[in-house]
C-alpha cells in the first residue's frame, strides 16, 4: 500500500513523467519533449528571478534605502543606472543603455584584468617551465611549444616546424580524447542518476 502511494505520489509521478518526456527526444522531437523543455526553462528563470529579488535586491537595496536613506542614498544611483538597461525596449532611448554598460565593463575590466593575467597567464607560463627536474615538465614544455607551432598560420611551416606541428596535433588529439572521455563519464553519471531515481525513489525496486 505504501509502495503504491509512493508510486502515485503526484510529485514523483510528475518527475518520472518529465524524465521520460526528456528521454523521448532520443527517439525523435515530440510535443512531450517540447513541453518538458519549456517547463524547465520557465521554472529555472522564475526560480532565479525570485532568489535574486528576495535574497539580493530586497535585503541589499530596498531595505537599506527605506530604513536608512541618509546612509544609503548612493544605492539609488545604482538602481537608476541598472534601470537604464530597460531602455533597450525603446527605439528612441536605446542609446542610454551605453552608460550602465560602460560602467559595468569598466568595473569588470578594472578588477579582473590584472588578476586574470596573473592567474591564467603568468603563473601558468611560469609553471610550464618550472621545476625543470622531471619528465612531466619536459613533456608539458614539448606539448606547449608544438601546439603553439601548430597554430602558426602567418607563414608557411618549413623544415623542423612541420614535424613539430604534427607532434602538436598529437598533443591536441590526446587533449580532446581526455575531454571526450570525461564528457562520456559525466553524461553516463547523469543517466545513472535519473535511472536511480526511477528505480529507487519512484518505483522502490532498489533499496
Amino acid at each position, binding site marked *: 500500500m505504501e509502495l503504491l502511494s509512493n508510486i502515485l505520489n503526484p510529485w514523483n509521478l510528475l518527475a518520472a513523467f518529465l524524465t521520460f518526456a526528456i528521454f523521448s527526444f532520443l527517439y525523435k522531437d515530440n510535443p512531450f519533449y517540447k513541453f518538458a523543455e519549456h517547463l524547465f526553462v520557465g521554472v529555472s528563470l522564475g526560480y532565479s528571478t525570485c532568489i535574486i529579488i528576495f*535574497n*539580493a535586491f530586497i535585503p541589499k537595496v530596498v531595505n537599506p534605502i527605506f530604513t536608512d536613506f541618509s546612509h544609503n542614498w548612493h544605492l539609488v544611483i545604482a538602481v537608476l543606472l541598472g534601470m537604464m538597461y530597460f531602455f533597450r525596449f525603446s527605439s528612441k532611448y536605446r542609446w542610454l543603455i551605453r552608460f550602465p554598460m560602460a560602467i559595468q565593463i569598466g568595473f569588470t575590466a578594472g578588477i579582473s584584468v590584472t588578476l586574470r593575467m596573473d592567474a591564467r597567464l603568468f*603563473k601558468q607560463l*611560469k609553471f610550464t617551465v618550472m621545476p625543470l627536474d622531471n619528465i612531466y615538465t619536459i613533456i608539458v614544455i614539448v606539448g606547449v611549444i608544438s601546439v603553439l607551432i601548430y597554430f602558426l598560420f602567418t607563414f608557411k611551416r618549413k623544415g623542423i616546424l612541420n614535424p613539430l606541428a604534427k607532434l602538436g596535433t598529437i598533443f591536441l588529439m590526446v587533449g580532446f580524447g581526455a575531454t571526450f572521455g*570525461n564528457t562520456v*563519464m*559525466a553524461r*553516463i553519471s547523469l*543517466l545513472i542518476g535519473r535511472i536511480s531515481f526511477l*528505480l529507487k525513489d519512484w518505483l522502490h525496486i532498489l533499496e
Partner: protein
Amino acid sequence: MDIIKKILHLDRRIIFLTLFIVLLITPFIHLEMKINITNPTRRIFNDVEEMSEGDPIIVSMSYAPFAKPELYPMTLAFLRHCCMKKLRIIFVATNEAGMSIAIQAMEEIKMEFEYEHGKDYVLLAFNPVLSAVMLGMGESITDIFPEDYYGNKTKGLKVLKDVNDYRDIKLLMDFSAGDSPVWWVVYANTRYNQRIGTGVTAVMAADFYPYLNTGQMIGLINGLKGAAEYETLINHTAEATEKMTSQAIAHIVIILFILIGNIAYFIDKRNKRKERHGTA
C-alpha cells in the same frame, strides 16, 4: 559484407536503447569494484585530515539540481569528512540553487554529527555579484554578508568567531558545474593567497588540471568517480561507490561500440580498396 554496412549505418537510437537497458540492469548486479584513489582527490582529503577541531572552512555551492547526480555525492562525502573533523563550515553560493542544496545536504548529516546552524555551520545568503563577494570576503566576511540565509545577524554568530577574512579560512572548497573554480582562483587565490580545492563535473575537470600543477588549486574531485574515491578515503560507502558498477559497465559498452565501429570502418575501407583494384 552486409553486416559491415549495417554497423556503419547503425541507428543511434539502438545505442541509446542498449545503454538504457544496460543501466537498468546493472544496479541489480553487485560487483566488488576496486576504487583507485587519484592524487588530486587524496590531496583534498589529506588537507582536511591535517586540520584541527574548530578550524573554519568555506564551502561554495556552485551548482544547480541538474548536476546533482555527479556533485551531490561528493558534497556529502566532503561535508561528512568535515563533520568528522569537527570543522566549522561556512556555506556560500555562487549559484541561485546552491543554498537549497547546501540545506538539503546538512539536513542529511547534521543529526548524525550534532551540527547546529549558527554554532557549527552557517548558510550565508546567495549574492549575484560574484566578483564583489569573492573580493569582499578578503576584506571582511561579515561586511559582505551582514545577515545569514535565515536573516540572522552574522556578527556575533559562534561559527564566525575570530573569522574575519580569508586569512582565517583554512580551505575554500568549491563544488561546481561551471567555471566558478577559476574565478575563485583569480579573485581569492591570486589576490589573497586563499587555498582553493574543487569538486567538479567530469565535463569540466580537464579545464582545471593546469591549476593543480601550478599549486593554484590544492586538489580536485572529478565527477562521480572522484566522489567514490572520497567515500573510500573516509571509509563511508555510499551512493557514488554503489554507482561505480553501473558506470564501469556503461563505459565497457561504449568502448565496445567504439571498437566495433572502428573495426567495421577499417574492414569497409579495405573492401572498397579491393573493389577498386578488382575493377582496375
